[in-house]
Each structure stands twice: as structure tokens, then as C-alpha cells.
């Protein structure tokens, strides 16, 4: 589980979107899990396969509000289904079983039949993580997933991410504004500043001098070291 930190505008979101294949860079090559996602400003021809192995969640939960939670989670299986099933929503039995298992992993089984728009922000984020489980993602990209949540909900989402990383063996890259979350959950931290890597190493090595180099001198008032 890797934390990605840095001031706003330093390129954290852009980097994550490039890895996920949601954005295309002008030049250079992106490889994920050994597969080329994009190279020299073009998406790879078979980027669907790489995208299916990569899952992404955002600051704003992006479940489909009018569908119930179970259907939202089942959408993770779309890419593995024959197209007539994907288009009619005739979820196979194994997908239904996956959905139930994933929802109980994120402790939302009791909310399965509720519309996503009725869930709290934290519940929606955990629902999005359940969707990644059904998708069988191997890499989870989380773009400031807890920035809009209250401290308790934020803790539960971070705990869920840590569980996916520890128990399910998923690689997690999470961009964070709060250094405390990085310290608590992520052994390794990469810091961006002005679109270049300013630090890459153990999170314990992030002392005040390094943070000042990344965020500027005002960080000393913002963080209790």
C-alpha cells in the first residue's frame, strides 16, 4: 500500500488517471502489471484487459445513484461477461455470489437493495471498493478517497483499503492530503511536487525537513509532527 502525497496541482490525480488509462499523456509509455496501457500519446489496442485488472475510486464516490448497491457492485463483472448478458443485466449465479461476498467483506450486505444515492459518502466509497473486488482488480488506484469524508467514515474506508491490501493481496496506490493517514496505513510514500518525484521511500522517513521541501514552509503550522 503506497501513499501518493503532494500539494494540490502537483500531478497526483493526473498520474493516477494515466495509470488507469482514463487520460492519455502526450508522450511516454505507461505499463501496468506488465501490460502496456498507453504509449506515445495513444491508448494501447488492448487496454481493456489492463483496465479490467486496474480499479479506481475517486474523491467523489462514483456509483450510479439510481441503481441499488448490489447492481452497482455487479457492474464490476461487466467486462468478464458475454455481451448479451452485459447489456441485459442477466447476472450469472457466480457473479451474484461474488457480489454477496464482496458486500459482506466491506460490511454493507444489509444495504444491498438500497439505492446508491441513499448511502452515506463513506458507504458509497466502500461500495465502490466492493465493485473492485467483483471486478477482480489486482491494482487499486484511489484518488483522495477520504478527502470529503468525516474522520470516522474516513477511517473505515482506509481500513477497508488496508484490508484489500493485506488480506486480498491487492496493490493499493492512494493519494492523500492527510499525512497522518499515510503514516498510519502506508509503509511507502511517494511525494510529488511540481509534477516531479520529490520523495520516494519509507513513510517513516518523512520528517519535517522533507515535508517542508515538498509543501513549502507553511506545512510546519499545518501538521503536528
Amino acid at each position, binding site marked *: 500500500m503506497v501513499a501518493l502525497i503532494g500539494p494540490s496541482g502537483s500531478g497526483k490525480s493526473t498520474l493516477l488517471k494515466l495509470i*488507469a488509462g*482514463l487520460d492519455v499523456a502526450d508522450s511516454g509509455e505507461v505499463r501496468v502489471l506488465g501490460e502496456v496501457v498507453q504509449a506515445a500519446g495513444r491508448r494501447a489496442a488492448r487496454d*481493456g*484487459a489492463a*483496465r*479490467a*485488472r*486496474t*480499479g*479506481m*475510486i*475517486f474523491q*467523489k*464516490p*462514483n*456509483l*450510479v*445513484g*439510481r*441503481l441499488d448497491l448490489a447492481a452497482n457492485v455487479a*457492474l*464490476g463483472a*461487466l*467486462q468478464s461477461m458475454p*455481451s448479451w448478458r*452485459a*447489456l441485459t*443485466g442477466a447476472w450469472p449465479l457466480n457473479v451474484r455470489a461474488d457480489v454477496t461476498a464482496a458486500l459482506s467483506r466491506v460490511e454493507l450486505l444489509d444495504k444491498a437493495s438500497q439505492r446508491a444515492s441513499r448511502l452515506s459518502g463513506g458507504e458509497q466509497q466502500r461500495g*465502490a471498493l466492493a*465493485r473492485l473486488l467483483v*471486478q477482480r482488480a489486482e491494482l487499486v488506484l484511489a484518488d483522495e478517497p477520504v478527502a470529503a469524508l468525516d474522520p470516522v467514515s474516513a477511517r473505515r474506508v482506509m481500513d477497508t483499503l488496508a484490508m484489500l491490501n493485506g488480506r486480498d493481496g491487492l496493490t493499493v496506490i492512494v493519494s492523500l492530503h492527510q499525512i497522518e493517514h499515510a503514516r498510519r496505513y502506508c509503509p511507502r510514500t511517494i511525494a510529488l511536487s511540481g509534477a516531479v518525484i520529490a520523495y520516494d521511500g519509507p513513510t517513516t522517513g518523512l520528517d519535517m525537513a522533507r515535508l517542508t521541501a515538498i509543501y513549502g514552509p507553511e506545512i510546519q503550522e499545518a501538521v503536528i509532527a
Partner: protein
Amino acid sequence: MVDILVWGGIALALIVGFRGAEIGRAGELISGAGNMASLAREFTRPDFADFPLYARQMWLTVQMAIWGSALAVIFAAPLGLAAARNLTPLWLQQPARRLLDILRSVPDLVTGALFVAAIGLGPLAGVLALALNTGGVLGKLFAEAVEAVDPGPVEGVRATGASPLAVALWGVIPQVAPLWISYFLYRFESNARAATVLSLIGAGGIGQPLFDAINSFAFGQASAIVLMIVVTVTAIDLASQWIRARLI
């Protein structure tokens, strides 16, 4: 600057159109008020002698509107998705938009006449004409609804690696469904009126006895028919309000 151009343009359009639209003759409304009053008096005595015929024809018109609107959705749903700026590449979006423009701008009286030539007189020609025209209107409205969706859920579905069609179906359709249904109901209601006019080209329906009545100066009968149209359209409006309130 832009304000002056816009308001100046509107003023210019009104001045240019003044003569063509014969607005100068508006004064004759007052001098002709007597004639209008005597005609209106005829309309206050609706003649329901032929009620069974009117009811049959009204029902036929509603049936035409039902099928015309339903067939229209078959064109409008895929074209509306294809024409949405936030969903499709230019090579698909532009032809879809142009096709919708054509469907919308050709009057249904013309398409109706074409269908009458092909399959003869009768309601089906009217239904097909309504379907094409309504398809063009609904397609544009559908596309605008799609352009206004929240991109987050769409990106979320796309990020699972789903195919573009599956993304549209699961990320977009649930978001636009209430609006699409609302637009559909509104067009269905206006089609019940438009289908009346289509009787002119021999499509049948309530328009037929209406024009017969007006042409033979049987204003009592015309009045009865107009009342039935008003009641029917109002009933459809109430029904669609009820449906809308339950769907959104």
C-alpha cells in the same frame, strides 16, 4: 456589445417580419369582432349527435399517438446516445446530429404523404410520419439529457473495463431515465394533437370529422369534436403527471 447584437437582432427580425405576417391587419380583429362572436356562439352549442363516431375516431387518434411515440423511441434512444457530445467520437456524433435535424425539420405532413404513397391511405401512414418526426425531436432532447449527466458514475463504470455500449447502458441510461420518460410523455401528449392534423392527408382519426364539420359550416359538430380533443389531451396530461411523479 453582445447584448446590443442580440436585442438588435430580435428587433430587426420583428420589423422584417411585420409585413409578411400581416401584423398591420390586427385592427380588423376589432372590426370583425361581430363575425367572430356569431361564430363563437355557434361553438357554445356543441352537437353530440354523432358521439359514437367521434369517440371511435378519437380513440383511433390516441392509438396512432401511442404507436407513433413508441416507434419514435426506437429511433430516438440510439440516435440520442450517438449524438451526445460527451459520449461519442465526432465521426459518429455529427452524422447522428444531422440525421436528427432532418427528421425534425421535415414536416410530418410531408413524410405522411410519402408513406400514403407507399402503403396507401390509413392510420399506419400517419403513425410512421409521427414516429419519424417525433424521433427527431426526442433524439435531440435525449442527447441534451445525456450531455447533462454526472460524469462521475460514467467514469466509474468505464474504469471497470466495460465495453462502451455497456458503459452507456449502465452509467448513462439510469441517470437519464426519468428525464427521457418525462420528454416521452410530453411528446405523446403533443402527438395526440398532431395526429389530428394528419387526418388531412388521409391518415384517419378525429381530424377527419373535424375538417368535414368546419367545411360544411356545422360548427356545433366542430365544437363537440374540439371539446373531445381538449378533454382527451387534458386526460393524457393528468395521466402523465401521475406517472412522472411516481418515476422521478
